[in-house]
């Protein structure tokens, strides 16, 4: 109808791309925030890991760019899937999730005494990253099945059991970080599903009782529920020390790194993160690297991007035309927010060291792909509500 304007001669092609990329139905703000985060990750890795791998200054950068591109493609692909159909696959998805965790337990490569990943040609596949998303999808579907019946304590208990089973398996790996993220997802999903407040109170009381009882009987029987290093990490932020091999030392160094960034950052004068005062600086402690190199401006900008992401994700919950979608989105919000808060908190000396990555910012294929998969689902829910709303 506007053929008279010459500038629109390319319009058909452009709309094809829009069509192909599902852009018309995507949440552009969320898309922008997620691409901004992965770009910031690449920028940080490019400036901070130049000397990490000998003779390969771009080792981490190249790989993270690749993971990012694959992740964005994956996100767009997933956004085109009708997520409501996933409900039909709930048992297969649940089984796949549990199966992948068990597979890691059985086959996984032993790294630092814990089994967390499977060697794939391109990267080490960490099934627990996929499991987080699968749990959001399958648990929501399982809840949805029970929605029509009266929601008694029995339902709550059975759903809780279904949700906590994979968490327990992950803890067996042992992967404390992913385990508690799974627990957070389960609780958030149940919360969004509308489980009565009283049930939550009961869950809380039971958890306190079990934890306390286990601790008492366990220490009496000399059984350790947490590995030594896990115990150290969890309690370390309460009593800092000077031992570089110590978890509390790492927290101390992270706080010094972040603080020393001041307002504008130290740029290439950064010493804390350059001189190995911090371990895992491209993964778990990358937020400290950002804090030191780019200062308050850089770190606050990252938190701002996350805030945008959370805002859009919460908005997806409100605009969704499907209750199933609301629950999935709730789980994903909990998953992302929990990881961001715990990881940033750990870098800022507020939270214990748990080995939780910073979504899209931490280096790593599994983490990046898993996060984009989750964002793809959010986009799919968003697109679904656009189409059907």
């Amino acid at each position, binding site marked *: 109808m506007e053929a008279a304007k010459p500038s629109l001669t390319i319009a058909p092609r452009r709309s094809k791309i829009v069509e192909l990329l599902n852009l018309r139905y995507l949440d552009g703000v969320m898309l922008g925030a997620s691409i901004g985060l992965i770009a910031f990750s690449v920028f940080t890795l490019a400036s901070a890991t130049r000397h990490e791998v000998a003779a390969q200054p771009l080792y981490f950068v190249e790989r993270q760019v690749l993971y990012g591109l694959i992740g964005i493609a994956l996100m767009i692909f997933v956004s085109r899937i009708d997520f409501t159909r996933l409900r039909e696959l709930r048992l297969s998805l649940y089984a796949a999730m549990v199966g992948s965790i068990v597979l890691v337990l059985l086959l996984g490569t032993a790294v630092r005494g814990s089994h967390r990943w499977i060697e794939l040609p391109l990267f080490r596949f960490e099934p627990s990253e996929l499991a987080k998303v699968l749990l959001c999808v399958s648990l929501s579907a399982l809840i949805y099945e029970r929605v029509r019946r009266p929601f008694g304590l029995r339902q709550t208990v059975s759903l809780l059991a279904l949700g906590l089973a994979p968490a327990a398996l992950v803890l067996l790996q042992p992967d404390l970080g992913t385990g508690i993220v799974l627990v957070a997802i389960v609780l958030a999903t149940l919360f*969004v599903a509308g489980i009565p407040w009283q049930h939550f109170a009961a869950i809380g009381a039971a958890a306190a009782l079990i934890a306390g009882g286990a601790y008492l009987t366990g220490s009496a029987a000399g059984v350790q529920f947490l590995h030594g290093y896990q115990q150290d990490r969890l309690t370390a932020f309460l009593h800092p020390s000077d031992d*570089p091999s110590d978890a509390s030392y790492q927290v101390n160094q992270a706080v010094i790194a972040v603080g*020393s960034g001041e307002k504008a950052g130290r740029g290439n004068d950064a010493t804390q993160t350059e001189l*190995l005062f911090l371990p895992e600086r491209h993964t778990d402690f990358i937020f400290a690297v950002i804090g030191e190199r780019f200062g308050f401006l850089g*770190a606050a900008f990252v938190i701002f991007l996350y805030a945008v992401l959370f805002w859009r994700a919460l908005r997806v919950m409100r605009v969704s035309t499907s*209750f199933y979608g609301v629950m999935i989105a709730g789980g994903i*919000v909990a998953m992302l*927010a929990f990881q961001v808060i715990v990881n*940033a908190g750990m870098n800022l000396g*507020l939270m214990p060291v748990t080995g939780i990555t910073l979504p899209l910012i931490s280096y790593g294929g599994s983490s990046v792909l898993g996060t984009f998969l989750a964002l793809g689902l959010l986009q799919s829910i968003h697109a679904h509500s656009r189409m059907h709303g």
Partner: protein
Amino acid sequence: LYLLDRPEDIPPRLTNRLNARIAVLTAVVIAAVAMVLLRLWSLQVLSGDHYRALAKDHGILDVRVHPPRGEILDRNGRVLVENRTVMSLELRPSDLPSSRSERRHELAKLGDLLGLSQREIRRRVRATPQYAGYPVVLKQGLDRRLLFYLLENKESFPGVSVERTYVRDYKDGTLAAHLLGLVGQISPHQLKGPAYRGLKPGDIIGQAGVEYTYDRFLRGTAGSQRIQVDALGRPRGTLGNLPAQAGDNLRLTLDAGLQGVGEAALRAKGLPGAFVAMDVHTGAILAMGSYPTYDPSFYTQPHTKAQYDAFGNRAGDPLVDRADQGGYPTGSAFKPITATAALEENLISPGTIFDDTGSLDIGGIVLHNAGGAANGPVDMSTALKVSSDVYFYNLGLHAHASGNGGQIQDWAHEFGLGRKPAIDIPDATSGLIPTPAWRNRVYRSRKNPYIDRPWTQGDNVNLAVGQGDVQVTPLQLARAYAALANGGTLVRPHVGGRIVDIHGRTVRRIKPAPQRHLHISPETRGVILGGMERAAMEPGGTSYPVMGGFPFPVAGKTGTAQREGQQDQSWYGVIAPYDNPKIVVAATVERGGFGVESAAPIARAILEHYFRLNAGGASGAAAASAGGVE
């Protein structure tokens, strides 16, 4: 449940309850994000400068680079002390295995290899300042076997490294050990002293002997290296470098050959003793030794406190330098001092004769000549030749009765006896010349059970022959004799000759001015030296049996001091040549009997070497005169 009434495929109209739950979730997320932002603000904006400061001196290690210490050479340029680089075993506690059992296992293995107990290792680790992998030296001077074993088994000893360090290398073993002295880590007390400004804990300084006195020249200037280290204390690059400056070399006045001859002669006696050979005009020490001695290289190795104590407390007190710290009664070797006092104070004239009947009755106490000899009527010269005690007893009595009663004491003090000898090595003793005031004060204080009565004339008589409470070191006697020999100049003895920088340039000559000039008339000097010459060169003289055959005249005086509870102390002091004095030698041997028996042969051996008598006779003597000193 709020959706129970809703058909599943119909899009959910958001109920109030769902909205409320989403609102709660939103509130939780907002709170969490706000918490992170507030914490960021607090760390980076409010306390940012604090953390920036923390981070800045983090990872920077200033390593002090110790300079090589200057060498010590003898007067002819022969190296006595130099530096040796040794492989030392260092332990970096931060690099030890983190597992307790592995750490214990490694330290136990290390302890076995080094012969150190676990307690000792822990003690040394604690004694070393800890910062980012600062090393603890566990052993210096690894032998090759141990070195190769450690290098081959590097992997089984994480945290252990082998480094090069400097230690003192004593080229001639025990030669002149007491004079050369020792080096050691600066003590906390010394660190506060103005002489050690700028030094740091762990620096090595001279702690005894010339190493102590000339430390400021020898020690050089420490450099420093600013190193970037990572969290494990591993060097990651050098940020700056201030090179260390080597210390200057010290040329001594000592003649290593002469020193060796003296020490050998003394050692041959097998008894504790000491000797001093000094230039009579300048006070330059040519040789000075003490027996028993010790091997200073013992101190180049780390030892336990028990080992140090055991080393120092061995029989015969080997660490004591008897040449300047051993105060003994001199016996008749004191007589030239008494003679000077008597002649200069006109108590007698050179021709005054006393009849030596072999004994003298002093207020009821009968004193005898040593050996009970009776020399008949003797004048001063003869009294010195035969060492007539009775003659000098009379001088003691006269001195007691005339003037202030302390003329012998006054002259002894003039000669530097009972006074610090002002030598350039630390801890020389002042000895003691007993005076009435001293004895009465000690008697009244009742602190010394041997001083059980006030001063009497008997004490002065005893002093006149070098007996009783008098204490003189060989160095003091040599200095007093040198004053007689050179016409009254009381020199300041010194071992240091000059300071030479690393390019061989002399940066300082050590020529201490004489302490004072004594007014001794030429007649007095002539009579006394003449008497001493006769004692050495004439048959019947006390040291004639040893010195009689010497190719040219010398002037010497023996001493045989009675000491409570042990055999007599043997003394000999000799000035040579008699007609043109160049060198004075004083020697003493504890429990050595008569002066002529033990001490005189040592002095003769030194003189023979000094005048090259062993090698070329008269031509040697000429060479010695031409060579001179300084």
